[in-house]
């Protein structure tokens, strides 16, 4: 198989998977090592971008997923007759950003930073699977520690937590 065929194969894998596909899985199916697969994926992403296709390949934590482009979002919603996706309220978003930058973190520490109760915000974030319980702190009461999920990364177009916009001091 030449490179074009392999890329075509990967593209079709991504299509049927729908969900994000880990690099190891792609590599094992096309029988190339992970490093070369990663290079090939970069190339495939470039091809999609260069040809300005309606679809793009996004990378999240070393997994790849086929997705539409944000600029077509509005038209797609119109086409589907869908309601616009609900965005997060300011309170919820502030809580999320504290969790994102300070994870793992307990509810009490979040509340200390925000100066207000965060129960509701946390329950919204849990419902939307943007955050999850990542463990318990080893202090009395063993409070829950929260961290962000891959859905969080995807929702904000981040490939990994390192890509979070830097905090201004």
């Amino acid at each position, binding site marked *: 198989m030449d490179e074009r065929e392999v890329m075509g194969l990967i593209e079709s894998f991504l299509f*049927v998977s729908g969900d994000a596909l880990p690099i190891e899985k792609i590599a094992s199916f096309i029988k190339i090592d992970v490093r070369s697969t990663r290079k090939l994926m970069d190339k495939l992403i470039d091809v999609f971008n260069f040809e300005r296709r309606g679809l793009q390949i996004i990378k999240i934590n070393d997994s790849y997923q086929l997705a539409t482009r944000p600029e077509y979002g509005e038209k797609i919603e119109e086409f589907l007759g869908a309601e616009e996706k609900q965005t997060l309220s300011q309170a919820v978003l502030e809580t999320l950003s504290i969790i994102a930058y300070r994870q793992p973190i307990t509810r009490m520490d979040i509340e200390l*930073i925000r*100066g207000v109760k965060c129960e509701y915000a946390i329950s919204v974030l849990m419902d939307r699977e943007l955050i999850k319980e990542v463990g318990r702190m080893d202090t009395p009461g063993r409070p829950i520690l929260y961290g962000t999920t891959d859905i969080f990364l995807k929702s904000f177009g981040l490939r990994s937590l390192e890509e979070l916009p830097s905090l201004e001091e």
Partner: protein
Amino acid sequence: MDYHIKLDLFEGPLDLLLHLITKAKIKIQDVSITEITEQYLDYLNRMKEFDIEIASEFLVMAATLLYIKSRALLPKPKVEEKEEEDPEEELIRRLTEYKKYKEASEKLRARENIYSSIYYKLPEELINKEEKLLPPIIEGNVQDLVTAFINLMSQRKFSKEEIKVYPIGKRPVSLSRRIHKIKRILSTTSECNFSDFFDRDYGRSDVVITFLALLELLKNNQIHIYQQGQFEEIIIRRVT
């Protein structure tokens, strides 16, 4: 009347303080607590006028501000107590910290706006090879479950010695907890032999609870029971 519109915009006392500071166009570090306290209390009073319930957090902050102000007015004790952080410094530190995350959340908001309009496809629903190989299934019903249960009970003997092993008497497990446990087992294995569920049941009440839990799950259509053939083991399967 601009405060009327802005009232519900504040996420908390820190947010309100930040707003007052930005409005005054000063840096957090240079804030005069005395001035800001006045504006802060003024704001709370307006909230009262509009009959808006003031959250306790706002009142706590008001108390902190007044405390800082009163400290500034009183002569300082000669011996500096270094154990506690100066409340004013602490407040400034908290404000700076809060501002950092508030700004980060604005950046995240911008990203959210872009990326919330991306769409993905659902995975293809293909029939798993393993599933295909399953032999034909005889559908089971509640009656079959009961029969299997009676068989199982008759095979096992609940002798009196067994009770002596647990003289204190175990607290019976609740039905909902047992249902939860069964669901957990099924979430890892997807299917399980009927008799396996009773392996770790020690007493009669345990067995009954497990059985009730299975009936409940069957009634709610959360499990599926079937047999490979007559008199074969009954298999419990999770409904996906």
